[in-house]
């Protein structure tokens, strides 16, 4: 027992060291920089709203991904399968890095790309149109790519959640005459809501703060700030604009994201702990 406690103390020390070096010190540095920023460089509200709008538009993909994943995972669940060749095929876009997927999409739809060449050869109207300079088209393409690369991962999440659902409940519902749609809406989705919320949250987090690799090759965040998300803006400010202005702006936006995440995470955990109070 003594050795158990000894190991426990050492592991707590390691976890604390990890949190201190990678999170606490950088956060203190960030907040310290934030305090030193003069009041005249307080955030530009219009830019913040644009970034928020862009992120929300891309979040449409979360709805699409979850809908497709629910249907497919329910299908697999009904067939008593945890993995299928279909799911393995769907993993292909997931294993391709986002930067490569983005660059491939760019090559497809660029002005001199194959899609444009074929379309403009047959329909002269397309000759003058550059797909990627059109903001609605760029968003559609980005949403499509996010869906393509996330569906398989979402299915795995949902299947993991569904593994806790006893088949007997579904069979009992079927005996009572419930259709598959009813079972899906009344039993499967409410039962699996934890996994759905968790995945939606992690995908939203990815879109708002880690989609740089996907967006950069396709639109470069443009035209203007039209397809720029928070992470793209911070990276551009810090590493491209540089200097005091760039660093200040990057710092402010980083603090805003941190505060925003705390505001989302804290109620989420309170809800989760209440729900699992017995655990």
């Amino acid at each position, binding site marked *: 027992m003594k050795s158990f406690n000894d*190991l426990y103390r050492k592991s707590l020390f390691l976890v604390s060291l*990890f949190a201190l070096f990678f999170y606490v010190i*950088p956060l203190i540095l960030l907040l310290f920089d934030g305090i030193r920023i003069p009041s005249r460089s307080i955030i530009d509200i219009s830019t913040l709203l644009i970034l928020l709008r862009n992120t929300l538009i891309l979040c449409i993909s979360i709805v699409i991904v979850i809908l497709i994943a629910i249907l497919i995972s329910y*299908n697999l669940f009904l067939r008593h399968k945890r993995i299928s060749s279909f799911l393995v*095929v769907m993993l*292909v876009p997931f*294993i391709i890095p986002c930067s490569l997927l983005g660059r491939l999409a760019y090559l497809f739809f660029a002005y001199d790309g194959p899609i444009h060449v074929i379309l403009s050869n047959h329909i002269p109207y397309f000759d003058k149109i550059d797909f990627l300079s059109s903001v609605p088209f760029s968003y559609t393409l980005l949403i499509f790519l996010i869906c393509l690369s996330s569906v398989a991962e979402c299915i795995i999440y949902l299947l993991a959640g569904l593994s806790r659902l006893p088949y007997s409940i579904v069979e009992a519902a079927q005996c009572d005459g419930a259709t598959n749609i009813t079972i899906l809406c009344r039993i499967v989705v409410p039962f699996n809501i934890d996994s759905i919320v968790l995945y939606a949250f*992690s995908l939203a987090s990815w879109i*708002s703060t880690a989609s740089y690799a996907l967006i950069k090759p396709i639109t470069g965040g443009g035209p203007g700030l039209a397809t720029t998300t928070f992470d793209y803006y911070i990276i551009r400010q810090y590493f491209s604009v540089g200097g005091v202005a760039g660093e200040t702006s990057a710092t402010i936006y*980083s603090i805003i994201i941190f505060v925003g995440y705390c505001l989302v995470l804290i109620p989420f955990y309170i809800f989760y702990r209440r729900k699992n109070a017995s655990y």
Partner: protein
Amino acid sequence: MLHTKTHNSIFARLFRCLIILISLSPLLFLVFNSLKSTRDYLLFPFSFPRGLTFENYYNYIFQFNGLHYWLNTLLVVTVSISFSLLIGSFCAFSLSLQSKSKAIPAIFILTSLFFLPDIIFIAPLYRIFAFIGATKGYLALILMYIRASFPPTVIFLYISMAKVSSDLYSSYMLDGASMYMVFFTQIPKICSFEICFIALYNSLSLFKDYTMALLFVASNNLATVNVAISRYLSMNNLDFPKYFAATIINLLPFIIYFLAVPIFFSKNDWDS
């Protein structure tokens, strides 16, 4: 027995075919066009290759020295994964020996850290690493990768190790083994599936990384594959088949992973 009649409808089949087509099209497009000459690609981008040419692969491997960047990535990912697995499995093991009331706070902290977006910490960490001179080599990138893979490793391994009864470890100790001996000799046997899974999962996400590799490695010679390939593209502006060949070579670890996962899952119990 559950009924599944509606899932074999024509719409379900069409939907499935459409998804398979969409899922496979990027990879097939890459493979077919990497085997074409530039002229063939520009004339017939969506056709099968008429005559196979491996010149694009040759150019990337021998002229651009593409394997060098591949090995760079392998080195960084292997070192990072090894460290995070070693430290993470140790933490998970020692937490799993405690009661839930003691272990949950640490897991709670790690889960919270896992959810915090990396982008918040990129600028301050970059400053710290630049200050200590870590960005000149791989140290900064390795630390960033350890940072990314440590929390999921601990959380995932804790969940699986908590299922093992601590009586088992006590019996080993009664036989004279120390806890470290149990950790280094028995844990790899008991949790081999989980350790392999989390190693594969983490290595995939690290191999896919572009942003960290771009920001935290200063030297061109030390670039990882995803960064090198973007430079290769800018060098060969309109020569897309060369770029596709480079992409296919760089996708090799993912293709191996793709082939390994179904075999891996079919041989192991998914529920575990």
